[in-house]
């Protein structure tokens, strides 16, 4: 190859590179724009609807006026219930997988099971919740059935993040404790768990965000179109923010008229869920920065 063609070949190679980098940057930019676009758009259309009354009053005039207070309360109950189910179960499973399990068929089975559970479509969780909790266990459409269904839905997320947090604790911590004659369980409960706690909590917070935003699993297990009174027990149906958006946007005869309410509810839900996620992200990055090991 003579020097001239070689030089132009080099030019071509670098040209190709800059075109590729341009495309890559554009893709990353478009993704960011999509996220911001959706948020900004909902904000612009929704913020006028979100008043104090909107947040604290129940819907009135067959859901064409008033607020969304029962839906906020309902989502709160369902989410708390879900995390109460998933957190203990998930953390214990993660401790077993990260600390006790050795390679083998049994562990392989559990891992495949958790992965497959994570992949089950949300509407199938809804069907399962209907068939098992609502009908078979006779819980009816209730906070209890919805929380259990959502709890199972977020279980794999909790297990995954807790296991990752446990694995990030340096092996030397465990060795130091075991070398002092401390038993395995004490090592885990006194040394490993406290070190992994911020990571585990981050995972739990992300799980809360996920549970708060899900619609399909609660459609047949917990969510009510409209309730006149707030739930009195865990066997009552509740309104929930995601389902409320769906109902307002698709059912009824005055869809156009209730548009501001729909935007307002969507804005409240998105602020809630993304706020929760953002808290988790901030906690995680600050923990990473402060890490002493």
């Amino acid at each position, binding site marked *: 190859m003579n020097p001239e063609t070689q030089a132009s070949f080099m030019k071509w190679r670098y040209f190709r590179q800059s075109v590729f980098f341009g495309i890559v940057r554009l893709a990353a930019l478009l993704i960011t724009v999509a996220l911001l676009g*959706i948020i900004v758009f909902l904000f612009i259309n929704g913020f006028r609807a979100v008043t104090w009354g909107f947040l604290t009053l129940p819907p009135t005039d067959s859901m064409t006026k008033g607020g969304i207070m029962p839906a906020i309360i309902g989502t709160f109950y369902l989410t708390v219930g879900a995390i109460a189910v998933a957190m203990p179960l998930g953390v214990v499973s993660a401790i077993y997988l990260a600390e006790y399990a050795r390679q083998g068929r049994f562990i392989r089975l559990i891992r495949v099971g958790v992965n497959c559970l994570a992949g089950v479509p949300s509407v199938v969780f809804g069907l399962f919740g209907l068939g098992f909790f609502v*009908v078979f266990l006779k819980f009816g459409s209730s906070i209890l059935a919805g929380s259990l269904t959502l709890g199972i839905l977020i279980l794999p997320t909790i297990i995954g993040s807790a296991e990752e947090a446990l694995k990030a604790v340096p092996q030397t911590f465990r060795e130091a404790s075991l070398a002092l004659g401390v038993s395995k369980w004490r090592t885990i409960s006194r040394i490993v768990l406290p070190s992994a706690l911020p990571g585990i909590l981050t995972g739990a917070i992300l799980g809360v965000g996920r549970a708060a935003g899900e619609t399909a699993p609660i459609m047949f297990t917990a969510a009510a179109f409209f309730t006149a009174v707030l739930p009195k027990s865990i066997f009552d149906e509740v309104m929930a923010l995601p389902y409320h958006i769906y109902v307002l946007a698709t059912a009824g005869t005055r869809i156009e008229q209730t548009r501001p309410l729909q935007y307002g509810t969507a804005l409240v839900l998105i602020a809630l869920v993304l706020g929760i996620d953002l808290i988790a992200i901030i906690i995680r990055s600050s923990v990473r920065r402060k890490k002493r090991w």
Partner: protein
Amino acid sequence: MFQTANTKSTLTRHLREIIIRKLFAFFAVISVLLLALIVLFLFRQGIPLFEEISVTQFLFGSAWYPTYNPPEYGIWPLIVGSLIVTVFACLIAVPFGLLSAVYISEIAPSRIKEILKSVIELLAGLPSVVLGFFGMVIVAPWMQEFFDLPTGLNIVNASFMLAIMAIPTISSISEDALYAVPREFKEASYALGATKYETIVKVAIPAALSGISTAVILGMARAIGETMVVLMVAGGAAALPRSIFDSVRPMPASIAAEMGEAPFQSGHYHALFATGIVLFLITLAFNLIADYLSNRFKEEGSGTL
């Protein structure tokens, strides 16, 4: 005396350790048991349908008229609807997911990298009902006007919204795969005089290919199982589409829309559970393939050179 007390305490301590271990193992198995319960209850409620019609009639029947008399329970149009929106969503989500992963793991400065990772995580956290709502009230009217269509609730719109849901999955898993490519691979490539572009395209991506395939498959699984978006945006027509601007009724949409009206233990009720079985089996297959690929992928690395 001292000796026995000591042995005894060692024994109880030992016993306690064993009990804790077994107890934790039991809790860990609960996930598997739950999966089994899901299968059991889907089949329990879905199988009775096949006393009325055959599996072939159900899967390949082209008419879904569950409320007619006599009813018809052919879910072929629903399966086609699901597959079409999933494939189109992936056509959009795979390039965007993969390119953003390349950007994050290979090109971006560390500050932008952190921001973009957060953006993708927030995108993953967007509630699907909000995306469905967005597609319904913003994208649909715009699309209807711009392309002069009878409805903006169609395959293209649903695919776009589904792509937004699948991008974070594809991006974050691909990024992990690219990150796991040993540095030596890239260094060797640079040492041979390759440009960064050549190193990414000819070394990093091929080395991460099984991880990237896992990412794509999990992204597809996410898209095919997604409910609210297709329920609100796909239009809901249970017929075979003839153009990409036609409405479809993917399986999850059909289940979610009709479950509330289907009389308990009726043929319709069982048919919806049977549709759930089909959907579950498809996503299960995707997940098992992804699991298999990612396990093979773990064994790769500089050791296999």
